[in-house]
């Protein structure tokens, strides 16, 4: 059928099951937006392309589907560099469409020209530079296939504006064949059997679960494996929700601000089963002293992650759902006897009793940041999507909020992007309209993308923004306090803006909660308000996140 290439893009999007996209129009993608006009696809006009990119990420994380973001050439494209990198680091399936100047202007410093294809190369899973209009439909389907399969990630399609206006003979694309891209999904049976045997022989095993388990929709399998033999479980920041918490088998998060129980268990473990986790430096601390007694089973879909940081004794490449399901099968055949773990559990329970997460509560009505997270958990019963930004509030949320299922915890883990939280919550709320969606943020982070409050108000997206307001860039201040002799350099944020007034100016409801004694009820009332609400909560100014593995130290040397 003859149609403009841009109309073919809309057909491809529909064939991929896309019902909502985020974006921002401009000169070079005018044809695309003309096609969007009566395509039937819902478009959410963000206020900045970075907000659009993060919203598409939040949509993908909450739904498990591919997120879509449109931007124009030049500054539109440079504005999506941060969400692109963020999606690359956290393996988020997002397809970005960027407009580009006309082909005869390419390379001439044309108006709003940037070498989008060139400058995004290191931060995409793959990208396409369209050279002929007939390539477009296939490129779109290949982009979706690459974004969502294997280890997911962002894919970019850069489209010179003249090529998108050409009429082409569109035929639906049936199959996608990429000879150079065939991710391994089936785990090796022999390796799985060896892993089952190792687990059976282990006396001090730990399951170390990362974001990959959530990406692979393997939470059920992970939970069943843990249940099959009373195995202790810890998750990374990205893995929270892969195993239901709280739970007697749950050790809490591990890593720099993880629980002592989880970190000590890793330190003394004799077998660690890593599932979709990549041994990040925030997990291992001092690499040479990380889990020194352990052998490692490493399950990951990306062969490049195997032995990247920590040598794996039993590597298994493939899809976590497939592998953990089969590992469970093999393991059951060995009829493990959980009583062999009695001594291990006694040791773990000892740590748990001796080192619970704790903080000193205020003696007056002042709200401690940890108390705010606990109040939020109580007010919601944990039944919500919670996004956060980056910093102290994020770590306290990871410690004191609990997730009993996956895709409820929306994070920028690898890149640590301030300004991610609220737009990502917006995307998550669009993906899961039936769920309460909250972003817990800091007074620093929220100011990095607060233009999106107007987007929430415009579309009536009922995201509740809770600002843990300590007037500082709290995590940087904490490091300056602990490691740089309290020389507080450029971390004080002053009292501005007034977030209640700002909320009202942008069309959201605004409120400020200051009384500890009524905080749970006040939060409940605020969360029950229709539409987007901004809730400013002043908290203790100088509080540190503990416990902590100091930078470059080993897990057993945790402080606080």
């Amino acid at each position, binding site marked *: 059928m003859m149609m403009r290439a841009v109309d073919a893009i809309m057909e491809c999007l529909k064939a991929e099951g896309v019902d909502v996209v985020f974006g921002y129009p401009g000169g070079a993608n005018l044809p695309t937006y003309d096609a969007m006009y009566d395509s039937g696809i819902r478009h959410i006009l963000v206020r900045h392309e970075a907000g659009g990119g993060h919203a598409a990420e939040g949509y993908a994380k909450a739904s498990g589907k591919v997120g879509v973001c449109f931007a124009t050439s030049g500054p539109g494209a440079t504005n999506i560099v941060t969400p692109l990198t963020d999606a690359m680091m956290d393996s988020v399936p997002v397809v970005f469409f960027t407009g580009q100047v006309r082909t005869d202007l390419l390379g001439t410093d044309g108006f709003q020209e940037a070498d989008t*294809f*060139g400058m995004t*190369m*290191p931060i995409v899973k*793959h*990208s396409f*530079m369209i*050279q002929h209009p007939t390539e477009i439909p296939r490129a779109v389907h290949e982009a979706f296939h*690459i974004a969502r399969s294997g280890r997911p990630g962002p894919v970019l399609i850069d489209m010179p504006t003249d090529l998108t206006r050409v009429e082409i003979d569109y035929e639906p694309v049936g199959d996608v064949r*990429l*000879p*150079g*891209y065939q991710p391994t999904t089936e785990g090796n049976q022999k390796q799985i059997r060896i892993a089952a045997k190792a687990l059976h022989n282990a006396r001090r095993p730990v399951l170390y679960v990362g974001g990959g388990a959530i990406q692979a929709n393997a939470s059920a399998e992970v939970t069943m494996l843990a249940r099959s033999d009373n195995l202790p479980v810890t998750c990374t920041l990205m893995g929270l929700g892969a195993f239901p918490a709280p739970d007697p088998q749950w050790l809490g998060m591990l890593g720099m601000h993880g629980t002592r129980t989880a970190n000590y268990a890793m330190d003394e473990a004799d077998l660690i089963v890593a599932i979709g986790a990549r041994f990040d430096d925030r997990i291992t601390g001092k690499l040479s002293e990380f889990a020194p007694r352990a052998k490692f089973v490493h399950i990951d879909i*990306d*062969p*490049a992650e195997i032995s*990247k940081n920590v040598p794996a004794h039993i590597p298994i490449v493939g899809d976590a759902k497939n592998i953990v399901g089969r590992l469970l099968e093999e393991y059951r055949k060995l009829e493990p006897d959980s009583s062999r773990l009695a001594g291990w559990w006694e040791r773990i329970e000892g740590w748990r009793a001796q080192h619970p997460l704790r903080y000193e509560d205020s003696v007056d009505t002042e709200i401690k940041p940890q108390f705010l997270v606990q109040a939020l958990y109580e007010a919601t019963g944990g039944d919500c999507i919670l996004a956060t930004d980056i910093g102290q509030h994020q770590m306290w949320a990871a410690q004191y909020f609990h997730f009993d299922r996956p895709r409820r915890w929306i994070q920028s883990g690898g890149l640590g992007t301030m300004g991610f939280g609220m737009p990502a919550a917006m995307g998550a709320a669009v993906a899961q309209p039936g769920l309460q969606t909250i972003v817990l943020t800091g007074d620093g982070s929220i100011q990095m993308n607060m233009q999106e409050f107007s987007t929430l108000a415009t579309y009536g997206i009922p995201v509740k923004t809770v600002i843990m307001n300590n007037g500082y860039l709290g995590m940087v201040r904490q*490091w300056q306090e602990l*490691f*740089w*002799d309290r020389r507080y350099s450029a971390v004080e944020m002053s009292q501005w803006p007034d977030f209640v007034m700002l909320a009202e100016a942008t069309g959201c409801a605004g409120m400020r909660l200051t009384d500890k004694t009524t905080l749970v009820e006040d939060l409940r009332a605020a969360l029950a308000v229709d539409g987007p609400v901004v809730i400013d909560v002043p908290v203790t100014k100088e509080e540190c996140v503990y416990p902590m593995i*100091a*930078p*470059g130290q080993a897990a057993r040397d945790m402080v606080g």
Partner: protein
Amino acid sequence: MGEPGTKELLSLEELEATAGLRTGRKHVLSILVENKPGVLTRIAGLFARRGFNIDTLVVGPTDESSLSRITLTVDGAMHPIDQVTKQLHKLVNVLKIRDLEPEEAVAREMALFKVSADAGSRGEIMQVVEIFRGKIIDVQRRTVIVEVTGTHAKVEAFERMVRPFGLIEMARTGEIALSRGRSET
């Protein structure tokens, strides 16, 4: 070594010691790729990101018109080169990579040497060219251009031999390689 977040002073020696770990055996990588925009940049970018120096790089057609072969040589210790090849495998347009062991492959490069040569020295130069089974492909009143094909070591040896005559200019292709026997490169 101190973590960048802490106050601890980093010593220059420590930094250099970690950088020094990188020099190891020479690798000859043969990479089969699809002819798509940006392939070479993506590959070069992965080496650059890990701080590798590419010594030579040759790109040319193969028996299949939609594919090209990239042969590149690089210095690197075993561990980091392994990370790079794994990352290369993830590139959608890369079909195949082989890290060729010297014993199981043949490798050749071509070089052109422009050497000062007057009537007095021309004969002697021609003798050296003969020994190395090179060819003189251009003769002028004061210069000759010599073509030499062979292993990296042979080309280097020829260079040492003609340098005393006055080496004006040199151009080298870098190695191309194929694995021995029936197995595909």
